[in-house]
């Protein structure tokens, strides 16, 4: 596949693996920033959420109490950057009592095994 926006017209499969909750550290927000840039460069981007990373997609987040920027709405901007492949690990959701139907963006619940399989098909995997 080629793209005028992609560096050297090359497109690679990028997967960003998110394992940390959204507001206890900067990793979730800064990882999302890379994902947006990768999308802007027309790359084939997937986002995986597992362990406490599934909390990043919980709906109705409100950070007013801690005075930080509520970057969770940026997940909805991913589509505008051509990024729509979001995966949440089923086991992580279940362990935390979360429901895939109640997330702030559409994300496909996948079993850990299937997620591992998906990872092997990527060209670049970044873990945060």
């Amino acid at each position: 596949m080629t793209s005028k926006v992609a560096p050297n017209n090359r497109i690679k499969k990028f997967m960003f693996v998110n394992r940390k909750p959204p507001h206890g550290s900067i990793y979730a927000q800064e990882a999302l920033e890379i994902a947006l840039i990768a999308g802007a460069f027309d790359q084939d981007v997937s986002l995986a959420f597992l362990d406490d990373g599934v909390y990043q997609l919980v709906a109705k987040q409100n950070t007013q109490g801690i005075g930080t920027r509520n970057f969770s709405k940026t997940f909805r901007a991913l589509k505008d950057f051509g990024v729509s492949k979001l995966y949440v690990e089923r086991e992580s959701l279940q362990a935390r009592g979360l429901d895939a139907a109640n997330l702030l963006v559409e994300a496909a619940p996948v079993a850990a095994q299937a997620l591992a399989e998906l990872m092997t098909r990527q060209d670049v995997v970044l873990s945060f």
Partner: protein
Amino acid sequence: MWAGRNKFVKLAIMVNGDPFTHQAAGTAYHFTRAALQKGHEVLRVFFYHDGVHAGTRLNVAPQDERDLPRLWRELGKQYRLDLAVCVSAAQRRGVLDSREAQRHGKDGDNLAPGFRIAGLGQLIEAAIDAERLVVFGD
């Protein structure tokens, strides 16, 4: 892919841990040095998250302790590495070159020689051009 046509591979390195608190940045340095010594090519070392602190010239390491920022500078000089510090992560953490400092009205700058400020696009480009992107972080 590793045992392909060429004996040497093109690598890109991503350093997400700061030089003092976590070992990850030290491992990144040792890995990068070993790869270069073996003859592999390192297209870029991209510093993100707290990794940007590797680019300071103002750290003072106790005499008997490892001075990772200095080690990166020396490795960078020896192998003419592209040591790129992410602009947004660096701004947030107060790692600035003179141009950034001036632009944002700061009264000082601290980026070490041999490092440069770069956008996230440089990370994506490096990941595309390299055969492998190796990520170091906690």
